């Protein structure tokens, strides 16, 4: 069923960020040479959640159309953030890149759809989408 409300959009984002953070933490244990960067990413995931929630709870008012913020199919943004046993670094990074790309796409689409009605929340989504794009490039660099 489509995601429509601001509230469920925020919850969806939280779940994705938590899954992404858990993936980064797990990769940090598996690949100590990149641990510092991956742990930094996990912290950044948590900051994204805090940022979105702070924005939402700060601007949600009776005048904001929170119940009609988006029309997004969650299936299109499904992520697989689990690592199989014995995964290689290249495969793990590929998975992390796929997760981040999907999240960047979700943030961008939600930001675009919500910009008319949800004010700062949509803006926060768009800004995080840009950050996610930067992370994707950094993860690609780690593959080299």
């Amino acid at each position: 069923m489509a995601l429509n409300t601001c509230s469920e959009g925020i919850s969806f984002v939280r779940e994705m960020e938590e899954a992404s953070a858990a993936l980064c933490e797990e990769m940090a244990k598996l690949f100590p040479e990149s641990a510092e960067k991956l742990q930094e990413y996990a912290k950044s995931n948590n900051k994204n959640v805090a940022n979105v929630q702070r924005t939402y709870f700060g601007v949600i008012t009776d005048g904001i159309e929170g119940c009609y913020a988006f029309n997004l199919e969650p299936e299109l943004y499904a992520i697989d953030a689990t690592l199989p046993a014995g995964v290689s670094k290249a495969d793990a990074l590929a998975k992390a890149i796929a997760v981040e790309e999907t999240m960047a796409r979700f943030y961008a689409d939600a930001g675009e759809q919500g910009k008319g009605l949800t004010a700062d929340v949509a803006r926060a989504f768009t800004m995080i989408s840009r950050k996610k794009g930067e992370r994707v490039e950094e993860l690609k660099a780690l593959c080299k």
Partner: protein
Amino acid sequence: MALLEEPIKEVKVLKNYINGEWVESKGEIVDVVNPATMKTISKVPISTRDELDQAVKAAQDAYYDWRRTTPLARTRMLFRLKELLEENFEKASRIQTQEHGKCIDESRGESRRGIENVEVACGIPTLMQGYVSEDVAHGIDEYCIPTPLGVFGVIGPFNFPWMIPLWSIPYAVATGNTVVLKPSSEVPNSQQFLAELAEEAGFPPGVWNVVHGGRTVVGGMLEHPDIQGITFVGSTPVAKDVIYPGCGKSGKRVIAQAGAKNFMTIMPDCAVDQTIAGMMTSFFGNAGQRCLAAANAVVVGEDDDFYNEFVAKVVAMAKGIKVGYGLDESIQMGPLRDVSKKQNVLKYIDLGIKEGADLVLDGREFTVLGGYPDDCFVGPTVFSNVDPKSRVGAEEIFGPVMSIMRAKTLDDAIRITNENPFGNGHSIFTQNGAHARYFQYNVVSGNVGINIGITAAMAFFPFGGLKDSFFGVLHTQGKDAIRFFTDTKVVIQRWF
């Protein structure tokens, strides 16, 4: 989506909060029912006149000390309250949903709006300053001091159980007055919780009192010689025929905010997709139980294709609205507050059909997601080709019913809008600035929206309607509230 946890878990009999004590009422006890689940969540007393009198006496006794507390000290208490409101934001929001039925996004919006009024009232050291003219005559100075008046009564409605009392109380107590609040007996838990937080914030006994109840308490407030003024939000008949004359008879100040029939003018040059999304929340948000909810959409122009396509898009989007229990985050529309309100909406749907409007979306046929009992639910309803003078086009329905009508020109749309006796929150959707300004200038409405469906004034602006939507002079919120809760004392001084 999983259901968010309900904050009220066991059925308790609510108590009055008088003179800093939680006191059992001797009045009749009635059930408070969650309209989505139809489960009793608490029991509320219908307090007696004697209990109201005790609260007013406590408020009057507390007033003498409270008005001598410095504005800064009063502000610090409001800051503490604001902290507690933030800490308990989610709980307060879920209580609103549990007792009223509105969606969690709407409840959070209501919580935020309430807090914003506390924030504005925190500016009282400057907001309450007077002014001075030196040498109005040689050696004579004149100055004006805003002073509090005493005890105020606040009568809350059912549709915004948390926010609306906060349009008044922060300003009343910040300016040095004391209050007796009567929450709606349909949704008393929100104000019970707010009073608990006010107690924790440290308001002295008697400054903030809550007396649950009904007509006896309201009647007692109107008559009581120690109550200096009343703020009320509710229906036009009660505001016009009971509250306003009642206050006049006993010489009280009054803010009586009343009913509405809000018109939304749709220009052919509007941004259609954004307009329709804005319409959904305005017509169907809070299940239409807002005094600022749009009720009539006036589509301007003689282009039949535009009209038909617009109506079809509106119906398609309205049909997709998810109806259910608001603690499910995916839900976009909750139930009406109670069974009688649903029956009233159904009556108007029947009436609209009899009056010849086209029922293009029948809210009697819909699905409640989650399998909740449908006792209080009505789906989004859309009539097209509505006569603005018909009952369905002219009277307040207070439910999720959209009436679409046509006007040849913008002038016609404004005329149709202004012929209605209400004037609370009319709006226009257009991408043309000249149209927008012309509408804003000529429409008779206390609040005007330009590409905004819910014309709710922020806390630092006054909120109130015109015509049959408001009875009184000053409005709630912002500087108007400061003036309402203070009188001006002018001093002329000369020293020999």
